[in-house]
């Protein structure tokens, strides 16, 4: 447990947080790799998943594609990328996207494809165009599964961004790799603890997002939205009006029905 004490005292020493190679800078680098890779994965996986889930065409493509991407080793792709394109944001982003795309694609696809058919048909029969059916009905209903995919993707990416350090890049992996290289194992432990803490915090935040997005619960609407204060007031006023109309209609059923 001597390592653990050394590692903790390293983390709780303010001097180790500042500077271009301090903990704060490494966390920022780590988050940068993570955010860029997650956004890139979302931009690719979510539209494809939405289209395939909505049309039902190309399901085979999702299953095979997801499996094939999972089978590609991140470390190999990262190192090859560095040799081919040099150091920079491109190699880690491409390598980490391999981890981010499969869960996002699977989540989006199965979320959209599993929306209750009766709901989709109802939307169509009300005269919604296909785009509106997808964006206004299917996507909100699929939100928990899409965000669940985002959660898995983020978790895997933030954990694996550690290997970027092996390719002479930054991030919290620097402590792990350098610590092992110079046999200062408490430094490696600093890296391990920081990455785990970062992953746990991000995961908790996204778990909350999944919980809030469950459709029909109104959890998203009830959340405080300080920036949209005026609109919330407007919207809730409009909603109060519409519910009163609904109550009126329910109380006074027409004779023709």
């Amino acid at each position: 447990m001597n390592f653990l004490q050394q590692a903790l005292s390293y983390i709780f020493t303010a001097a180790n947080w500042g500077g271009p190679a301090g903990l704060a800078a490494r966390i920022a680098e780590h988050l940068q790799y993570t955010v860029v890779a997650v956004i890139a994965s979302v931009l690719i996986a979510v539209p494809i998943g939405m289209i395939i889930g909505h049309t039902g065409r190309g399901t085979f493509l999702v299953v095979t594609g997801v499996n094939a991407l999972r089978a590609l080793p991140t470390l190999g792709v990262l190192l090859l990328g560095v040799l081919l394109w040099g150091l920079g944001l491109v190699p880690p982003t491409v390598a980490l996207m391999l981890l981010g795309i499969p869960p996002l694609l699977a989540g989006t696809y199965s979320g959209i494809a599993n929306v209750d058919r009766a709901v989709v048909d109802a939307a169509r029969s009300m005269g919604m165009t296909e785009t509106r059916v997808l964006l206004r009905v299917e996507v909100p209903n699929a939100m928990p599964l899409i965000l669940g995919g985002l959660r898995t993707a983020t978790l895997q990416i933030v954990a694996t961004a550690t290997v970027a350090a092996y390719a002479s890049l930054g991030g919290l992996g620097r402590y792990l790799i350098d610590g092992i290289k110079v046999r200062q194992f408490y430094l490696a432990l600093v890296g391990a603890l920081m990455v785990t803490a970062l992953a746990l915090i991000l995961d908790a935040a996204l778990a909350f997002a999944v919980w809030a997005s469950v459709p029909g619960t109104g959890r998203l609407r009830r959340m405080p939205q300080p920036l949209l204060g005026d609109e919330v007031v407007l919207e809730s006023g409009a909603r109060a009006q519409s519910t009163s109309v609904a109550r009126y209609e329910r109380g006074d059923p027409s004779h023709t029905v």
Partner: protein
Amino acid sequence: MRYLLTHLDDAWALTVIHLRLSLVPIVLGLLIAVPLGAFIQRTTALRRLTTVTASIIFTIPSLALFVVLPLIIPTRILDEANVIVALTLYTTALLVRAVPEALDNVPEPVRDAATAVGYKPLVQMLKVELPLSIPVLVASLRVVAVTNISMVSVGSVIGVGGLGTWFTEGYQSDKSDQIIAGIIAIFVLAIVIDTLIMLGGRLLTPWTRVGVRPKARAAA
């Protein structure tokens, strides 16, 4: 590609290590997760506790776990055993959530029928419920296997063998050919194991190919 063809002997030796490091954890994980998952399926409190513990374990980055484990268990710091224990933890964490979900998928009438013809709870679990949950279980097993094979290659960063050593060697000697060979070898290995597990699952569940085929659940 040329590198792979000229180093087939190396490739084979490394593949054996790679397979050992990735498949032993799957077997161990199954041996732990199936009894545990079946045990906690009906107890809501235990099930929630297990799910939370499992997701926390899953949050720990693999590279971090490889390094931290020797401080907790009595192994040396750059030992193969660390990788096996770490991957067993991940495999168990993933499967222990999948097993109760797979068991939930067994239709209630089937359970009732088994009870009605006189199966005792334990025998019913072993001979009726677990076999019927194989299709869902196989889906998560495939994800675990492919993920493990990819994860073992990360172990080469801390000096553990397997096909990942071609990545670190190729990177240090600036040979992109060797890295490409490693990617191809690992990719093929993952696809082969994935296919074998899928075929094994089909072989174990002949009834799914008779009459109406139950809708396969997408592995998320």
